[in-house]
């Protein structure tokens, strides 16, 4: 809390910390498990998702989660923040340090890819 400079909302500041720490944690985990290919890591996550005791969705939501795992990391982040957390582009820009225009493009592309995945995958 002593590092909070009050130049943004507390919520976005905490969100940024949580995002960065989560990414760092996942990268360390990948490194320790000697997982070098992102496709392989995402495939393993998709496979374990079905067996996860904390997944509480239906088949469609499972498919959506698998579709998300096919996205690049940045696009996935933007989509999650926009779609699930309903953050504004300004807030997302503050958290990720990306321009609003770039975020809109990323979100638009992510939506398209997910739609294609949902339509073309069983």
């Amino acid at each position, binding site marked *: 809390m002593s590092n909070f400079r009050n130049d943004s909302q507390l919520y976005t500041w905490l969100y940024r910390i949580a995002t960065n720490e989560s990414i760092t944690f996942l990268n360390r985990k990948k490194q320790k498990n000697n997982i070098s290919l992102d496709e392989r890591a995402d495939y393993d996550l998709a496979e374990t998702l079905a067996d996860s005791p904390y997944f509480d969705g239906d088949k*469609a939501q499972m498919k*959506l989660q698998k579709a998300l795992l096919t996205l690049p990391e940045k696009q996935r982040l933007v989509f999650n923040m926009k*779609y699930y957390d309903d953050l504004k582009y300004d807030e997302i820009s503050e958290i990720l340090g990306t321009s609003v225009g770039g975020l809109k493009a990323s979100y638009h592309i992510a939506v398209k890819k*997910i*739609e294609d995945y*949902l339509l073309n995958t069983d």
Partner: protein
Amino acid sequence: MNERDINLQKEAPTLAAIGNGIPFTVPSGYFEELSDILKSRVLVESMRPDDNPGFNVPQNYFEELSSRIENRASVENLRTLVPSDGFSLPEGYFAELSARIITRVENSLERKTPVRRLFTSLVSYAAAACITVMIATAIYYSSNTYNFNKQLSEIPDQEIINYLQAHSTAGDTPFIIENLNSGQMEAVTPDVSAEELELYINSTTL
């Protein structure tokens, strides 16, 4: 329906139909215990010394891990393809090894390195004997000469003169003349002139 949902309906109707409900749950009591868990974690982190995280891995351990595992896998694969490396040990090698080592060590202790001297003891003794003889000889002669001179100096001069007059021979004359100086010559022949002496010498020369 808000603007976002309207736009999503147009762009991705399948996605819009699924909805944005979060399909994940958390363990029971997660949020109730979260503050306590966070406080305890903060306390643990604060107690950890900065310079010693407890356990360290070698430098570049994770970076080289994949190549190290691949190399190990290749070696294991090679072993399955070539089970024998072509070398074998004689029968009973390890069983006799300790006894063989002990025997060899004992033999090496008994064996003494021969020491060859540059100069044998015989040559040393001979050299020492020669030197001793030379020194003894030198001492003997020097002591004889010394004794003779000492004895001679104790005899009065007149006795020596009387002896020489009684026992001199013709062969002693040149020797006597050689060792006489002019002063002594006048003492021996005070009444004889030089011309008479010369006449005598010329008449008696052989």
